[in-house]
């Protein structure tokens, strides 16, 4: 029950403009919880205490000037803090992490971490919603196009980015950068987009140079494209 009391104390402190606002101190003292406490009862009529003003994490309130977006709220993000979240990779290679992995290593990673859903031959499994990863080139104009990494995805960086952030389904984000480079080399090798020589290796530099078969297959939104008449 120390939490609401602390917050009441801080609310009181705020009203007399005493800066007690260091986020680290606050978050560090916070016990972990699985639910919220019900609002405290206060006063003669046992009213429920209101939530009250929340705390700014800013170390100092500083000069307030709403017109210039100076609110004394929030705090600078350090490079280290950003690095902890900054996992995206872009087509030109920006964001791809250090590391490397080979087709042969990727074959092992795939067998261990991916094949259970996507199939030993990367053929996918419709019953569990795991898409086919390779094949389908030249089918995009067919009545039943086969959209895969090989036939449809315009950028190799997307493969790295998505596997790194969200795969495998049963343990998302658990593959190391080396493992993701390796499994990317394996998938792209199996798709004949890069060499399927076991020694073929991908890293940040080579990944950005991979040319995908459908790289030029995308156009920007031309709508409104249909003009109905009243």
């Amino acid at each position, binding site marked *: 029950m120390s939490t609401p009391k602390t917050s009441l104390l801080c609310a009181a402190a705020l009203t007399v403009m005493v800066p007690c606002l260091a986020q680290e101190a606050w978050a560090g003292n916070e016990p972990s919880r699985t639910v919220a406490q019900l609002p405290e*009862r206060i006063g003669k009529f046992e009213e429920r205490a209101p939530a009250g003003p929340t705390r700014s994490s800013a170390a100092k309130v500083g000069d307030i000037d709403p017109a210039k977006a100076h609110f004394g709220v929030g705090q600078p993000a350090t490079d280290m803090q*950003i690095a902890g979240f900054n996992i995206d990779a872009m087509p030109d290679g920006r964001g791809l992490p250090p590391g490397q992995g080979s087709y042969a290593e990727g074959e092992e990673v795939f067998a261990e971490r991916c094949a259970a859903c996507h199939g030993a031959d990367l053929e996918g499994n419709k019953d569990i919603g795991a898409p086919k990863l390779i094949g389908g080139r030249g089918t*995009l104009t067919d009545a039943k196009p086969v959209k895969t990494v090989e036939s449809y995805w315009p950028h190799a960086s997307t493969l790295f980015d998505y596997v790194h952030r969200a795969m495998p389904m049963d343990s998302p984000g658990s593959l190391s950068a080396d493992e993701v480079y390796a499994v990317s080399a394996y998938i792209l090798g199996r798709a004949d987009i890069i060499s399927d020589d076991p020694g073929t290796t991908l890293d940040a530099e080579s990944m950005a140079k991979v040319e995908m078969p459908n790289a030029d297959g995308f156009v920007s939104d031309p709508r409104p494209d*249909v*003009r109905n008449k009243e």
Partner: protein
Amino acid sequence: MPKDKRFSGSRYGPAERHMAESLVEIERRMLSGQSEEEDCDCKEGMFNGLTRRNILTGGIALGGAVFTAGQAAADAPPGAFEYPVQPDPTKEQGRMILDDGGYGSRSQFENELRWRYPTASLDSSWSMTPLASGHGIVTPSGLHFERHHGGIPAIDPRTHELILHGMVDEPMRFTVDDLKRLPAVSRFCFIECSGNGLTEWKEPTLRTVQGTHGLTSTSEWTGVRLSTLLEMVGLSDGAAWILAEGSDAAVMTRSVPVDKAMDDAIVAYAQNGEALRPEQGYPLRLVLPGFEGNTHIKWLRRLEVSDKPFMTREETSKYTDLMPDGTARQFSLTMEAKSVITFPSGAMKLPRPGFYEITGLAWSGRGKIARVEVSADGGATWQEAALDGPVLPKCHTRFRLPWTWTGKEAVLQSRAVDETGYVQPTLPELVKVRGLKSVYHLNAIQSWHIAQDGEVTNVHA
């Protein structure tokens, strides 16, 4: 300490606790056959309105309601408690105030539910709003459609932060508490999944309006304008796109144009007057009025400013529209004008000829709905429907039209026109341009066939 630990001090005030404990004591005595005359602190007239007489007639049931407070009985629909139904509610006191614990519930006689489209994966799936039974323009938060790419995370807002970085002057991070200290804005807007109707391109597939159109919902969203945050961090020259990233198992990402971010984007922490529902992104969600649903990143944790789009999986492999020539359209972000008649609609049956009010919803990602027309003859003739206010930009708009069904076959359609003059197309017009493989962004006119026996079915007319 309360005598009975079921009535804890955190949940019950002293008066409520005394009342509940007294009821338990009365019930105990009744069940054990103890005499009325025996002295107890549960005497008649002890509290207003509750007499020994109505305890005898309805008291046990009332006590039962106390016992079940906070947990739904198995037979009650989700979101409801099962209370004893009174034969004549004017002849006995109703159930006790706050026996729901202080957070209300719907009637035990209301049963609308979201319905999950049977995707193969449960982790990446969607559920749809029961539009047929909706009223007005707001979707109850508990019925707002869902689309998850990696399940629904449970996040403690005290440990959640939003980080803004990339092409900015000063990267910053904000706690949820920080965001609540900033100037806020509230607005109503629809969110529609670009996959709404994806089963309906080739032939009528799903039977109900929930199945054909239930991936659109409207809420009032409250939060901080994204432009406020971007002004705080300062955009660098050349900033053109922002990556929005969620804190779910999919670490869901989309690239958003800076122009949209500066225009009307909101970092929302509230929906319909209370905190966001977990399945709607608690504690923070990006709201991009008029844009396709998957860009409204839930569980928002990071915004990275860049000069180019990031080309994430959800804007390349998915949510792109394959055209007949084999090219695919990308960043089709705005949801175009659309409407649907929600009553009468698929799988209903009109009991007999007579008066029916046709009603439905219209919306446009480009602005306000200017007009909705309704046809009862498959599009041969059209009649303007009344727009039931408020008519808000990028928001569901309710339309109504009185109609008399004569008992003859009919095909009901609605056609929306938005303030840009865009007219909702027919399906053949759409298919002529886009073919049958584009999956997303189906906004064609919907047809409901009324058979002579009153049966309403989904048809392509």
